[in-house]
């Protein structure tokens, strides 16, 4: 039996972690703003980071396939969603 071995380059893990880091700050700011809704500086930081993460996510998806389902990411041919390994596999 042939086993599927990942052909993911080191850059995959590097970029993924960079994205995880940005998204983590966004989670933290989001929860903080849920209890501090009047903090303008945090809202500005949140919006700025949301823009940065969207650029990085776009770049990542061009290289490694869609991150999201239900129309929040684009797909090349053939359907890429289940082609790329899943988070618990990589």
């Amino acid at each position, binding site marked *: 039996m042939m086993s599927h071995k990942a052909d993911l380059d080191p850059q995959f893990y590097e970029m993924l972690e960079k994205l*995880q880091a940005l998204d983590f700050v966004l*989670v933290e700011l989001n*929860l903080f703003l*849920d*209890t501090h809704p009047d903090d303008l500086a945090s809202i500005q930081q949140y919006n700025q980071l949301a823009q940065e993460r969207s650029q990085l996510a776009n770049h990542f998806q061009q290289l490694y396939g869609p*991150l999201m389902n239900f129309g*929040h990411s684009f797909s090349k041919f053939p359907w890429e969603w289940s082609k790329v390994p899943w*988070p*618990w596999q990589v």
Partner: protein
Amino acid sequence: MWVYEKKLQYPVRVGKCDIRMAKLLIEQYGGADGELAAALRYLNQRYTIPDKVIGLLNDIGTEELAHLEMIATMVYKLTKDATVEEIRAAGLDEYYVNHDKALFYENASGVPWTAAYIQAKGDPIADLYEDIAAEEKARATYQWLIDMTDDVDLQDGLKFLREREIVHSLRFREAVEILKDDRDKKKFF
């Protein structure tokens, strides 16, 4: 509506083939203070909590689903390449005869998950105090799990999850303050 994002919240690594840890980690998958209980508790309470704190319950509940996936990843990685002999030697034989290597919502002693683990009292203070207690109990469980392994990679992921309980606990404490009295809040700034 939820939309899935095909990545873990934190890069989970398992550095050691310690199959027995899978049995212990299941506590945070389907145990009383585990991530499934946490997610379902908050996502259910959000419907009847005052509007000011719905967002917080919604968002922490959603993050808990990401933590559930991290725990699942740890269990999956520890068991996927185990032989039946290794499974028996590690004490996972009782789990195996019931589930093979499928993940299941049960605690480390094999007790299946039950809705009796969570509460929805409808009283916002009672519900938020339960949430704070749940976060502290989950933090403690992560400590005891960290104690049970010398795998620094696994410890690393568990330490991340323990820290998240701390931040969530603080946010729930803030939610209580918000509901106690809006004007009082200002003096803490």
